[in-house]
């Protein structure tokens, strides 16, 4: 490769999962702790992509088939990068991790595991996850771990668009018709118990000082952002209790098992095959 692309804004911009796999073969291995952290980020992106992929050919408008498909595609790209890097600690590929781990080995959050529901519920989940990921990645670009920083540098620009998409729909649905207001409000009520988990610190985060982003530090800016969007959307923060989840992310919602059964079925019918 020669020459700089005119559209290349940051060095991380062009980073592809294949580039990370190449770096891994050249000896760039994540430590166990960094790998565990990368799994959390990668699994959130993967499970979200799996959920969003369902919408393609089922969205309210063709433009939304394209938009939700695009967001799913970005998320699967982030997942592939994080999982490839995580796998370097254990000699595993992105597909080993995606297709051959059991439920309790996943590190996804309850929020991304939640079913799509109607478009309102999907958008509610999108606003929360995109706002969280945006706060997260815009800090992770300063991580002492260069690979995590590089993945975040690419991801943050894409997530910025995801957040904008969810925000525009939240405002339109909130301030649209009576029915849309009721549905988007119900969507936020159903996902809100799983918001708190995203912002919980644990021992792993303590051990990765300077490398991982401390989730609890993201909460204030997340809340401020949500408050501003809700004000415009004529919505209120749902008055619901946080659900008892798991800050270490070993435990999962009941939904994950079904999702994995579908996602992994074909790969597991053919052990050792390549595709």
């Amino acid at each position, binding site marked *: 490769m020669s020459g700089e692309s005119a559209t290349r804004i940051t060095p991380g911009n062009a980073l592809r999962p294949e580039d990370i796999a190449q770096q891994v073969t050249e000896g760039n291995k994540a430590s166990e702790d960094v790998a565990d952290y990368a799994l959390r980020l990668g699994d959130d992106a993967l499970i979200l992509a799996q959920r969003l992929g369902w919408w393609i050919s089922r969205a309210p408008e063709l433009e939304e088939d394209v938009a939700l498909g695009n967001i799913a595609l970005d998320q699967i790209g982030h997942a592939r990068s994080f999982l490839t890097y995580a796998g370097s600690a254990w000699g595993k590929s992105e597909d080993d991790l995606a297709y051959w781990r059991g439920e309790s080995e996943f590190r996804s959050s309850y929020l991304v595991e939640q079913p799509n529901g109607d478009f309102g519920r999907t958008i509610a989940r999108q606003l929360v996850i995109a706002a969280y990921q945006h706060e997260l990645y815009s800090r992770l670009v300063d991580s002492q771990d260069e690979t995590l920083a590089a993945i975040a540098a690419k991801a943050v620009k894409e997530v910025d668009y995801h957040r904008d998409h969810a925000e525009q729909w939240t405002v339109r649905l909130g301030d649209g018709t009576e029915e849309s207001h009721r549905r988007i409000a119900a969507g936020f009520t159903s996902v809100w118990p799983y918001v708190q988990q995203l912002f919980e610190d644990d021992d792993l985060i303590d051990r990765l000082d300077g490398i991982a982003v401390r989730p609890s530090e993201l909460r204030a800016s997340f809340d401020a952002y949500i408050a501003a969007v809700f004000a415009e959307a004529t919505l209120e923060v749902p008055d619901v209790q946080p659900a008892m989840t798991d800050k270490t992310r070993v435990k999962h919602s009941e939904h994950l098992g079904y999702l994995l059964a579908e996602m992994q079925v074909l790969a597991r019918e053919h052990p050792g*095959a390549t595709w």
Partner: protein
Amino acid sequence: MATQTDAGDQKLHAVPSAEDEAGQAYFDKIIAEDSRIEPADWMPEKYRKTLTRQMSQHAHSEIIGMQPEANWITRAPSLKRKAILMAKVQDEAGHGLYLYSATETLGTPRHVLNEQLMSGKAKYSSIFNYPANNWADMGAIGWLVDGAAIANQVPLCRASYGPYGRAMVRICKEESFHQRQGFEILLELANGTPAQKQMAQDAVNRFYAPALMMFGPTDTDSPNSQQSMAWNIKRFSNDELRSRFVGMIQEQVKVLGLTLPDDEIRYNEETGMWEHGELNWDEFYEVLAGRGPCNAQRMERRREAHENGAWVREAAAAYAAKKAQKAQVA
């Protein structure tokens, strides 16, 4: 100017106005020069109708064609394949949008075209009424179905109607990427485990004949073809394109190490055409009439998506109206 589309062309054309005569002369000149008709130009009503039908059918095919592939997004066997498949189905939504926009330049709005699809009045390519049963179908659809589509569509890049021809240039570029990824899926499977190879052969067996039928009925049974060729919309006959396609895939299948389910493929030195075994045209017309394995399922899914999305579209419209009103007050 003649009244557009809807009703009784013949009556309307009984007494051509001076404007119509001048328009017809200009149109004939453009066609004779093999140049392009643009949306604002005068055109015969039948030309407008033929194009509206063909272009909207093409758009509907892109949209319905998303379904058999979207069916496998959640089960794609590797993350890379999942990403490629998502991108491909997303491209198809884009093609549909692009073609609806091009069709709108002929005077029929998108919501009307959509209603025609959902009421069953408008058709889409019958191939999408066959099920995608195994992963290798993602390969066979790319290689054979998109391959046949490209063979049909490359000549359409020179179609006399400007917006259609230009839309096809872009669509063909993406379709050729789709075909390559389909071929690559099959190549990987054909060189994989015995079970994978069997999966690939099974997919090719099922999609071969329906893909050949995508070129439409034989020339002797294709009543609209001649007029379309005279108007420079269509450049080659159905049988010519089909023959060319058979010649191409019978070479490519050797690279895959698979076979085509047809013992009668041969090159006819005299006609310079590739020949193939008899196709089951009764089945073609059955599927076209709505009795294929997936017709009902595909239509139900499209209607469901549209109906479930009604409240979202209403909300967007209501919000836009509120904003416009506020802007007016301010």
